[in-house]
């Protein structure tokens, strides 16, 4: 090949990249430190880079915000909480390594596992071995706590759970089905474990509540597929009366945008379980009116002052609105600080016992309270609702709250059918 002059500034290019690197290092690790001695250390492996960085960033934001409040109020008899956050880059093996390192080298008192399901299960295996008290903040996969083989004394889930959403969604959709006689359904969900499970569960409960529903077609885009045109055209060909989707975040935005270009929302009712999350709602320009959505996080639901205050406070600090991951992480701080106060120390067994069955006042509760259910160590009683979208703030109206007695009843049946209860 040709000759090239080497004179021009390799060095300055390298210098620039080194400077960028140095700039990047400031401000991390994020440690919320208070005064006082012997802080209570919480380790938090999560995803801060790559496609789902938003998960870790909003989780961390909420944890830092709530921990600061706790520390400002004097902590636990003057002992502040210190949080160490590290990036697993979404690699489960890294999540496991970081968790282990936090336990052995940083000697954390407990873990906030900020990983989604895949990394969450990896961390789960680590703490099963080490017996470290662990709160899973972002894993929605039902089996994590519902399957007794996965359960052990020191791991708790402070997150919504797939099966709860499916029952609530099925019950809501069935009402609409009855009112408008929507019998021909199609689905468009991402082709991976979460998408498959959630869709199957939703359809199961939809059919249980509205037996005349027929599924006439399915299309399964792969996770993070860049373009959904082919799936949209498949749906327009099928001419269904209603469409269900558990696409989420960027994938959902792309789908909705392309589907509205095809006029799909004029043709069919759309049920999107993951639509009502601010990052999604704000990115969909020209949000179609009347799309049915479950609440991921909404500052107007539950409609209580505490919830609105949380959203405004978060917005003031981070110039953006909270996500579903944010309310879950905040709830984890609320629960653990309550347990710490009860126990008066950090003994993991005592804390675990305090957490079991703990009910606290919460702005995210269906009736002002959330509970860490003792039998399977998972969060229940949080607000679940469905409503329809409008194009401007508050984006979703006519929220119908789900009924937890219905959820509990069907969840119990579901567990029995799985041989888990």
């Amino acid at each position, binding site marked *: 090949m040709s000759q090239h002059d080497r004179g021009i500034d390799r060095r300055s290019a390298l210098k620039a990249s080194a400077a960028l690197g140095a700039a990047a290092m400031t401000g991390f690790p994020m440690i919320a430190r208070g005064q006082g001695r012997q802080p209570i250390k919480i380790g938090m492996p999560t995803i801060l880079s790559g496609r789902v960085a938003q998960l870790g960033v909003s989780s961390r934001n909420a944890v830092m915000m709530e921990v600061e409040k706790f520390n400002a109020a004097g902590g636990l008899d003057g002992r502040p909480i210190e949080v160490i956050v590290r990036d697993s880059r979404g690699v489960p093996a890294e999540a496991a*390594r970081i968790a282990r390192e936090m336990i052995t080298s940083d000697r954390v008192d407990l873990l906030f596992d900020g990983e989604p399901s895949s990394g969450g299960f990896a961390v789960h295996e680590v703490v099963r071995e080490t017996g470290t008290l662990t709160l899973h903040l972002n894993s929605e996969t039902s089996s994590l706590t519902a399957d007794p083989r996965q359960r052990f004394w020191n791991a708790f889930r402070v997150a919504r759970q797939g099966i709860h959403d499916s029952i609530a969604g099925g019950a809501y959709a069935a009402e609409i089905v009855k009112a408008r006689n929507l019998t021909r359904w199609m689905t468009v969900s991402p082709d991976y*474990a979460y998408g498959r499970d959630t869709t199957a569960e939703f359809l199961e409960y939809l059919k249980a509540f509205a037996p005349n529903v027929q599924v006439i077609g399915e299309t399964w885009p792969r996770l993070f597929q860049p373009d959904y045109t082919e799936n949209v055209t498949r749906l327009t060909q099928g001419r269904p009366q209603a469409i269900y989707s558990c696409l989420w975040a960027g994938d959902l935005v792309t789908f909705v945008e392309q589907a509205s270009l095809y006029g799909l929302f004029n043709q069919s009712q759309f049920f999107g379980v993951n639509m009502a999350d601010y990052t999604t709602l704000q990115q969909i320009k020209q949000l179609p009116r009347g799309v049915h959505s479950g609440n991921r996080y909404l500052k107007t639901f539950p409609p209580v002052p505490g919830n609105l205050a949380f959203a405004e406070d978060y917005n003031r600090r981070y110039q953006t609105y909270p996500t579903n991951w944010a309310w879950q992480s905040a709830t984890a701080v609320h629960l653990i600080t309550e347990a710490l106060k009860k126990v008066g120390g950090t003994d993991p067994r005592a804390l675990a016992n305090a957490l079991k069955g703990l009910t606290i006042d919460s702005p995210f509760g269906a009736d002002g309270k959330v509970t860490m259910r003792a039998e399977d160590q998972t969060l229940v009683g949080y607000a679940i609702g469905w409503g329809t979208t409008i194009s401007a703030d508050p984006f979703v109206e006519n929220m119908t709250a789900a009924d937890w007695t219905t959820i509990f009843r069907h969840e119990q049946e579901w567990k029995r059918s799985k041989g888990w209860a």
Partner: protein
Amino acid sequence: MRTTLSWRGDMLVAALAFAALAVPAFALGMQSVLDFAVRFAIFGLLAMSLNLLIGTTGLVSFGHAAFFGSGAYAFGLLMQSGGWSVPMAILAAMAFTALLALVIGALCVRLSEIYFAFLTLAFQMLIHSIVISWVSLTGGDQGLMGGVPKPPFLGIDLGDGRHLAMFSAFCLLASVVALRQIVRSPFGAALRMLRDNPERAAFLGMSIFRYRLAAFVIAGTFAGLAGVLMSLYVSGAFPTFLYWTTSGEAIFMIMLGGITVFLGPLVGTAIFLVLNDRITNITEHHGLVMGSILLVLVLGLRKGLLDYIVDAWRERREKRA
């Protein structure tokens, strides 16, 4: 005669290395040291096996993680199915990766360098998307969950961190000895000739296809073993094991250490792991820092650290002579 001698020599060195590394780790029993030993064995083996392709054969594979991940999944699935002992499952997992490497290799090794690099990448992405979609078998994106059972065999209990560290170190050293024998054998010499002078090799009537395919299968099989260790280490298997980033990291490790020096990839692995752990502790901009380091290395040195040192040393010696 000479090969048997070097065989013994290698074994001896390996045994000494084992004693020097594993025994103190075992005695100390510090979890962090043991963890590092296991990870070093896993990635060291991955990098060493990849260098059989890149360094010895001159085939730059960007899809080596496909075999790493396949080994992990095959082993994890066999153990979860029950009825398999650990050694048998390891052999079966390696056989499976060998077969997979045979199929993919048959399609890829005929091609020129550049085609080869990105076809291996493309097949890896295909396998990755199969693993993501085939939820009933692989658990999809959540990976193989529920833990990998590790029934004790021959008095070795891989559920114990110390046993696992010793076992991983043993697998690494045994593989390194085997790889060294392969590289120094007539077969290895043939691979180098194919790399440096394919016309001459063809003139001698050698089948480029068969030699390269054999190297591809061997490298894939050892990567499969590394994957087995990984699934033992994390007690599961995850799609990221066979994502392109894992392949990228393996190449990064080789580049850090050196391509022409036999043990270069191991040095690179150690540097990479230490760097990786330090960087994740201080910044969330892992990619920026690692990318800059890589760029400096590639454009500055244009070779691995050990390559650079060895070349510089040779040059000095020649100057003196």
